[in-house]
């Protein structure tokens, strides 16, 4: 590399000169279009032209720092987006979901522009100066806060996933999507900044009779959900920050409720009102929807935590092994998460879950957060049925599909966390399959 501020010793001067001559050569090479070869060498078939030639970005000056005041991804990344499917939409795109491209994420943080998004009445554009939060009901001192006042409370930042409980829900009866984005993309992970609700409530005097809290949005759907005070007084947060910046509109700008580990739907966006009561509220999204019907004919209402789960992200249908050759050492990588605790370990299987070996966790291992796992594998070019099975520190382990459906049947829509499997073909293609009896 050139040292821009070099001491002018002989070595550096000569290095700079060499660099200058190379550039001159490259420029003249470009000028003679296509024959761009350094003088005195002969082209060989194995030569990679992108190494042998200087591309435009290697000699033309780039755009100034004054462009893109809010930075954008490289235009070459334009295919890395959230995606939709009509199947997962209630008629229009205002009551729908956008799936996160988890196949293209690294680490455990989801960029805000790729965070999965679900709404029931479209995404509102709320003026933060006209936003208010009202806390009332069974409290001694009801309260109205502006956004500035809310942000005066001491803040905490926590890394948690948010997952729609319908993640994987279309596949109770069999696999449907040959895509990880659509099979498991109703979730994302971020660092959330806000205030613990219990810290606000300290001064409001929650009455002993208060057992439930209604959280209600101020968007056109006015979506409400009932939250038990147990969660309110544990780790429920009112958040305004997402990965270091303000919440995105799709995530509830200016403020949402965050119930770590619990159904995304419970983490009410565009939050405006919290009411405490002695009895539950029976909101639409905890009766008509977000209830899990069992074969007994009874449905679980108030199904809170997303249970322990995992998925192999590499390989996956979008990231196959078709470029690998026999003998290549390859990392099997994936995501594990639990709304009930911290990931303790993940096993992987090559035969669809009959035999398991323990994978390694890597990176940060945090409560109610995505956790990365990794297993080094020598590729043999043979068909495989890859599976992963996570367990958490509350003692839960992912069920097989048979175990889960034995209790839940195939009509419960929500909270499907049975072991997921990918078929890897002899050619390295990856297909979504299920193992069941």
């Amino acid at each position, binding site marked *: 590399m050139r040292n821009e501020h070099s001491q002018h010793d002989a070595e550096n001067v000569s290095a700079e000169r060499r660099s200058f001559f190379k550039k001159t050569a490259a420029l003249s090479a470009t000028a003679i279009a296509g024959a761009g070869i350094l003088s005195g060498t002969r082209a060989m078939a194995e030569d990679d032209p992108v190494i042998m030639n200087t591309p435009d970005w290697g000699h033309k000056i780039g755009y100034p720092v004054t462009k893109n005041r809010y930075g954008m991804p490289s235009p070459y990344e334009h295919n890395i987006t959230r995606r939709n499917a009509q199947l997962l939409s209630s008629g229009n795109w205002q009551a729908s979901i956008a799936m996160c491209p988890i196949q293209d994420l690294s680490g455990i943080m989801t960029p805000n522009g790729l965070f999965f998004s679900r709404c029931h009445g479209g995404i509102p554009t709320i003026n933060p100066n006209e936003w208010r939060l009202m806390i009332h009901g069974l409290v001694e001192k009801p309260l*109205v806060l502006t956004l500035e006042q809310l942000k005066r409370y001491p803040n905490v930042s926590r890394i948690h996933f948010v997952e729609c409980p319908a993640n994987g829900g279309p596949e109770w009866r069999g696999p449907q999507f040959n895509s990880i984005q659509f099979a498991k993309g109703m979730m994302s992970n971020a660092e959330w900044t806000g205030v613990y609700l219990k810290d606000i409530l300290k001064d409001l005097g929650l009455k002993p009779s208060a057992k439930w809290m209604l959280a209600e949005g101020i968007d056109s759907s006015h979506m409400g959900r009932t939250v038990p005070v147990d969660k309110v007084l544990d780790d429920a947060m009112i958040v305004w920050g997402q990965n270091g910046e303000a919440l995105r509109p799709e995530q509830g700008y200016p403020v949402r409720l965050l119930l770590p580990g619990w159904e995304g739907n419970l983490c009410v966006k565009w939050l405006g009102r919290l009411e405490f009561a002695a009895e539950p509220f029976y909101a639409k999204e905890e009766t008509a929807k977000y209830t899990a019907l069992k074969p007994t004919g009874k449905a*679980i209402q108030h199904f809170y935590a997303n249970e322990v789960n995992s998925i192999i992200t590499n390989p996956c249908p979008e990231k196959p092994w078709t470029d690998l050759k026999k003998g290549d050492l390859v990392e099997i990588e994936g995501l594990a998460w639990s709304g009930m605790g911290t990931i303790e370990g993940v096993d992987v299987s090559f035969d669809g879950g009959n035999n398991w070996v323990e994978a390694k966790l890597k990176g940060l291992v945090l409560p109610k957060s995505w956790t990365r796992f990794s297993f080094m594998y020598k590729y043999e070019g043979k068909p495989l049925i890859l599976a992963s099975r996570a367990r958490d520190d*509350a003692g839960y382990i992912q069920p097989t599909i048979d175990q889960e459906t034995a209790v839940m049947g195939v009509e419960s829509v929500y909270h499907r966390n049975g072991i997921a499997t990918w078929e890897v073909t002899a050619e390295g293609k990856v297909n979504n399959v299920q*193992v069941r009896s």
Partner: protein
Amino acid sequence: MFKFDRKFILGASAAAAVAMLATGCFKSGDAAAPSASNGDNVLTYANGKRVIDGGRYYATVNGKSGPYYVNTDTENGGYTYGRTPTANELEAWNTTVTPWRLPPKGQGTAEEGEAVYEAKCVMCHGDFGSGGGGYPALSKGNAYDNVKTLKFQRVTADAEGPIRVFGNYWPEASTLWWYIMEGMPHPDTRTLTDDEVYALVAYIMNINEMEIDGEEVDYEYVLDQEKFAKIVMPNKDGFEPVIDGANGLENVRAYFADPANFGAQKIASADERCMSNCQKETAKVVPITIEQKEFIPPLSEVRDLPEVENTAGVDLEAKNTYESSCAVCHGAAGMGAPVFGDKKAWAAVVGKGMDTVYANAINGLNAMPPKGGTDLPDDKFKAVVDYMISQSK
């Protein structure tokens, strides 16, 4: 819809597997101890009660909660931000209708409700609440009969599934009143009067063939606050755990303390998990039979430069208005509105003459509100109409 006939036997390993019930590997039940090493009972809160969701509690110990450092000085209260809401403010925002808080006084009949329904609801929810286009159905016939379908499971391709509409599934009628008032009509909520909501609830009960206090909710039935209070939903007891009453929270805690209730699996320690020969002999690999692949945009891992959208000659302001105000009805089939981009449908519209088209758009037509619910001046709204026509040629 699903077929499982393309099952094929998992390779040699499964065929050779020792017959071993997978359930033999896991013990379920709330006796399982957490595998955490700190020795505390981490499945209870500080007050000794079970964690309500069946998961972990991370107490703050020595200034740390789990992996996070905590400034415990922030936890003592003493904050003086904000103010007390006024009585009017509380009333303005607290419009929630629940089983224990009746809707405001008012009344309406099913007949009146049908008129409102035909004007404001039918374009999404279909004739007589039949649904369509992805929007929820409101009725599938007699609510009392349909409760029986809740035990149906589509385990074979031709099996009938459970019906889950208002009449036969929802536990409380208050939810319907609340939801219609706060969330409907979808493109313009909080615009119905209390009487209209009563009328719509009566109509929806009518098409679900429901009764109140032994009396059929027929066309002339007048639903008011007093009668509303007497509604008992057919599937009131179809949910678990029981969340009502003094034991509501305790019932939930007990429910999630038992993994068998919700299809979860627990192990007492990592050593207890099955590592080899875990599958039943009957385990098979099930491939996708009917593949869903209508993805927008299509899946792609290609890194290239995007095509530049040609917006030359496009009124971007009109385009934005279309996307925010018109696409909800014109963007998809099944809404009764001419679909954006449908050349044939729009040719028919334009065939009426542009004066008529503009007038209809400005004054409203059928289910379409005046100016599509926007408050644009006429010329701006005409530009939106022009944009929609220009993109549908």
